[in-house]
């Protein structure tokens, strides 16, 4: 089942500052720099150390042939430039979090971006521009970035503005509560309750239909939302299942109840007009799913907080809008 989510944050720069302050003062349990400064140290427990993929995964990853990269294409331009320019995050545990020691960005999204860079250029060179969820469409339309790797949920409305390769990951929203909470056992019990969500996450729009009558309060980042839950600003926290699981692992004061109640399909956001690039990225996804690279990335990142092995990767084009 599931994986993750978290695309937070509006005002990315604000959120980064806010997160830094919140984490510093609130001891949210993020152990921070628990080692893992090089890819050679996989499986380091604790947030921050997770999300490290063995160098051998990169070494074995496929590289596109010259025939795959026609002259004048976006791929050729990227290869000539020498790095892939992506829009992403630096503060999403297990997805794309910057290691404070090494400065490298670790997590599922970050590794997928590096593997796409390796496929196009031959080496995993990625330049990450941190962007807010409210500017993704504009950045892609203006070609400020080549692609967006940011747990970008595929929706038909968004697909009118951008092209989605994938889905490359699916997950679902679940419910987190304080440890001593007994009256909330699933999303059905949220009616009349105050529910914390991450601003600009799918929970904002999914909650009113999944739990009618619930009152919603939104915080800019996941650490803030977790802190708000523990400080009793709300009765529950609705967020992606994997993110909640990693939060519960780090914070003994909370637990996850029930199964995920939505299905989110995450796509790689690309320029709407560039059908050739979308086909190229989809072909790459097919390759890394077939050769087991996808599963290795999953196990090294999100798999570190979810029991059981890697799930079956989502079928390409299976989401409405991809």
């Amino acid at each position, binding site marked *: 089942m599931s994986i993750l989510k978290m695309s937070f944050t*509006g*005002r990315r720069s604000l959120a980064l500052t806010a997160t830094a302050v919140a984490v510093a*003062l609130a001891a949210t349990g993020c152990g921070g720099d628990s080692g893992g400064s090089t890819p050679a140290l996989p499986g380091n427990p604790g947030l921050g150390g997770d999300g490290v993929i063995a160098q051998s995964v990169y070494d074995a990853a496929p590289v596109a042939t010259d025939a795959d990269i026609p002259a004048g294409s976006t791929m050729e331009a990227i290869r000539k430039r020498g790095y892939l320019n992506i829009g992403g995050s630096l503060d999403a545990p297990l997805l794309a979090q910057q290691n404070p020691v090494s400065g490298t960005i670790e997590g599922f999204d970050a590794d997928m971006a590096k593997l796409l860079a390796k496929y196009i250029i031959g080496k995993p060179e990625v330049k990450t521009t941190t962007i807010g*969820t*409210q500017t993704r469409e504009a950045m892609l339309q203006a070609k400020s970035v080549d692609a967006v790797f940011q747990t970008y949920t595929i929706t038909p409305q968004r697909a009118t503005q951008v092209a989605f390769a994938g889905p490359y990951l699916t997950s679902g929203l679940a419910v987190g509560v304080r440890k001593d909470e007994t009256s909330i056992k699933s999303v059905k019990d949220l009616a009349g309750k105050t529910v914390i969500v991450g*601003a*600009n996450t799918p929970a904002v729009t999914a909650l009113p239909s999944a739990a009618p009558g619930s009152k919603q*309060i939104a915080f800019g980042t996941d650490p803030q939302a977790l802190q708000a839950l523990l400080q009793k600003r709300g009765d529950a926290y609705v967020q992606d299942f994997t993110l909640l699981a990693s939060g519960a692992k780090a914070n003994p004061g909370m637990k996850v109840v029930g199964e995920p109640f939505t299905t989110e399909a995450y796509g790689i956001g690309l320029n709407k007009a560039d059908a050739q690039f979308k086909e190229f990225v989809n072909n790459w996804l097919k390759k890394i799913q077939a050769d087991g690279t996808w599963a290795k990335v999953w196990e090294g990142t999100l798999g570190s907080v979810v029991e059981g092995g890697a799930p079956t990767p989502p079928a390409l084009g299976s989401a409405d809008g991809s």
Partner: protein
Amino acid sequence: MEALTAHLSQLGHGLVTTVELTVVTTVGAMLLGIVVATLRIAPVPLLRAIGTAYVEVFQNLPLLALLVLFVFALPTIGITFPLFTSAAIVIAVYEGAYLAEAIRAGINTVGVGQAEAARAIGLTFGQSLRHVILPQGLRAVIQPIGNICIALLMNTSLAAAVGVVELTQAANNVNLVEAQPIAVFTGAGLAYMLLALIIGQVTGLLERRLAIVR
């Protein structure tokens, strides 16, 4: 355009919250500003020091950091305010420092002779402040106060970071569905501009009626 019209009630609620937050914090910041400016010109050294410390502390901390501290740090020592109240308190305290300086500048325009005359007819410090100094001082700085109020309006958007669904957060939520940031944020931007223009107009009106021509 459709992205905006389909969510008018959502954006409208955000706009109302922004206006409420602006009005409440402007009143609070004005009162604080007057008190702090008074402290800064008080005859007692300790009071002057308190006023100076207030201004230095709150002018030199980022508003966002203050908001996050207030909302997430206070609960760890058992003090929790509702989010709207938290945002209103923090923004009022922060903007109060700026207003205090503007008001102090106004007080400095009042001639020393005015204060001496007030004292000569037997008014206490409080009385001369209330009846002589402040009325003249405030009327000298109506325009700067208006500008600070416009900045205050813009600063209310930071409340979105701590969970208050004001205009900026409402626009974020709409964009999450519509995926049309340029249309949505242009609309929200125009709403802010309209509010700022209204503040500017009121300020201009007050200035024409109240300013002292020297």
